[in-house]
């Protein structure tokens, strides 16, 4: 009986997953316009600590380059968005909206030379959980 319940649950959960096709950061998941908005927000809210070049400074790590992408390689983009959403900016964590955080994330992706696409990055909860961070094109 229990097994049957579990099987049904797995089917339902599986259907949900199928609906969200696995993607990577190489699949054109943000728009140029969104990245431009994000760049402005980044300069206002993030650059003071992380640096204009995203290279990091005394009290904040770089947000680009091999070290950054090694640290996030294989993680899903939702995790990175959550990290930004809950802990940044450090002087007022949680003060940016999901849409704003998605814009900033788009700027990071653009700065990382990942291609833009026709649809903006969706900041809604769970939307990015099937997008994997890959430094190199799969």
């Amino acid at each position, binding site marked *: 009986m229990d097994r049957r319940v579990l099987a049904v649950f797995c089917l339902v959960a599986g259907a949900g997953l199928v609906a969200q096709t696995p993607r990577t950061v*190489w699949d054109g998941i943000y728009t*140029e316009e969104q*990245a*431009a908005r*994000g*760049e*402005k927000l*980044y*300069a206002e809210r993030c*650059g*003071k*600590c992380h*640096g*204009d*070049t*995203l*290279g990091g*400074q*005394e*009290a*904040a790590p770089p947000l*680009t*380059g*091999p*070290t950054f*992408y*090694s*640290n*996030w*390689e*294989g*993680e899903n983009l939702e*995790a*990175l968005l*959550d*990290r930004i959403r*809950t*802990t940044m900016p*450090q*002087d*007022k*964590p*949680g003060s940016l909206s999901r849409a704003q955080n998605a814009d900033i994330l788009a*700027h990071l992706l*653009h*700065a*990382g*030379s*990942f291609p833009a696409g026709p649809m903006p990055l969706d900041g809604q909860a769970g939307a990015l959980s099937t997008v994997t961070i890959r*430094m*190199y*094109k799969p």
Partner: protein
Amino acid sequence: MTRTLRTNRMVVAAMTALLLAATAGLHGQSGAKKGEWPTYGGDLGHTRYAPLDQITAANFNQLEVKWRFKTDNLGPRPEFNLESTPLMVNGRLYSTAGTRRSVVALDAATGELIWVHGENEGARGAAAPRQLSGRGLAYWTDGKEERILYVTPGYRLVALDAKTGNPVAGFGRSGIVDLKEDFDKQKLDLVNAPVGLHSTPIVGGNLVLVGAAFETGANPRSRANVRGAVRAFDVRTGKLVWTFRTIPQPGDFGNETWENDSWAYSGNTGVWAQISVDEELGMAYLPVELPTHDYYGGARPGNTLFAESLVAVDLKTGVRKWHFQLVHHGIWDMDIPCAPILADVVVNGRPVKVVAQPSKQGFLYVFDRVTGQPIWPIEERPVPQGDTPGEKYSRTQPFPTRPLAYERQGLAVNDLIDFTPELRAEAVKLIEKYRIGPIFTPPAVSKAEGPIATLAMSTQAPATNWPGGSFDPETHVLYVHSNAQVAQLGLVPPPEGAAPDVRYHQGTVLSGARRTGGSGSATTNAQGGNINGIDVRGLPIIKPPYSKINAINLDTGDFVWQVPHGETPDAVKNNPALKGLNIPRTGRNGAIGTLVTKTLVIAGEPGYGPTPSGARGSMLRAYDKRTGADAGAVYMPAPQSGSPMTYTLNGKQYIVVAISGGTYSGELVAFTLPN
């Protein structure tokens, strides 16, 4: 031949015995004693050494997690950058942790929480320039009473009863000294004044010493800022005993080194790194950072003492005994980032008490810590001059002649990536529009036609940062981790209205909406991975090693060994451009502290990387301290973010290290051997 060798060995042995006898009376810095770890650096000289020998090369791989302590709920949100080195005294482990920098006391055997103290500083905490859990705390006892002292993010010095965690009523006001008050005659806004401290206070004698840190200085809002100063308080009462001004005011020694009266408004010049103390000599060693503005000194012409100087002061009075400026008129954000290491060594047959200062610039500066005289000559040499309008460069800089720099400095074509001739050629092309040169090549005003910036290693992207090094008092070998990484030192006008009296901010014409108004300004790279084009196909523009641990004999200034630290990053290993090539261990970049025991040097790998099991994480590594050979590695789910420490309890040696990063929130992990 054999006989000769034997004879020589006997002579050497006899000489060594004599020298050991000669140094035995010095009561120098001998590491953490009694199996405890009572200060941030193991002892007041920051040797990060403990003569424990249960964990060795023979069993390091068998280490198991004994306990973990998760720090998520110590503040309103989890922290992902736990930098603490805990203390262990009398079976209790003390640490700062969590986003509000709470203090916890744990059972050192089990990790069970005994007490926790937190301060909700509200708006003052939110405005703090140095947030999160900080690097730890200090312990004091008179044999009866025990206290824990730490500095909150909002810059208040708190004394707690180590047994209960309650604030000590007789210290300051209800256990707290407000460090924004009585701060070298400066009137500071108690909520918003941008001053704080990441590092720990240090207790020497009956005094507790505290430095100061500020917002990072690349893009200051003004040439004026809060002045740094070091203060000492009575550890029993919290009463201010002395203040050492790091920016000398009129009448003070060194005031004339601030030209155009720039002493009057310039700020920073704090001591944000760890201070070291020699209680026997009655001296404290202050590593001072640079003044306001990390990269442009036009508003503060002159050598500006005591910027980027190692200053020795009388522990009881704060009066300066000697100083040595490591960088004149600094414009590279070199600071002095870590604890001066106090060591008793034997140079040319003469026992000498030295202080050895690792640095961002990859030099190890070694002085007689009584007199301030360099142990080996430090020469003033001419350095490159720049062309930034308004800047007044120092014509010379100090160059230690021994030890040689332990990390690469500046940038030359020979430093560039050379896995293949094609990659080298791409790198050479890439730097065409950048300025390169030896150490002390000045930052460049950024221009689209070039120079876009100065590219340099061992500056703002440091060789060694806040974790500093370790020293083995038995073998006289100093260990220090270093990075080879390239910073872009470019100057651009500040955004309109953002900083009216500041001529330049750090940045380049390629970066930032404030600079160009367009996201499309970043150069693109078909292989991905980077902004602004200073990496080559997602690979560091320089050749490896990207990081290493350096072992330096302080009796001779010779290198004993240097080994890459950290398995080759995935980003390099899996790079399509390197397909088919055999890449040796490259090391990985990070701020890494080392621990020395009877036989091992222990340090976690920087950042996430490949692990033997394939699990996401990082390895805690051990090296044979004599040779640098691999001596074992154990898995951690996240990289080391604080420096490891060790202690013995109930017959067991523990290694505790703070880990965090990426999606993994701050955690203390204790390793022991299986029963």
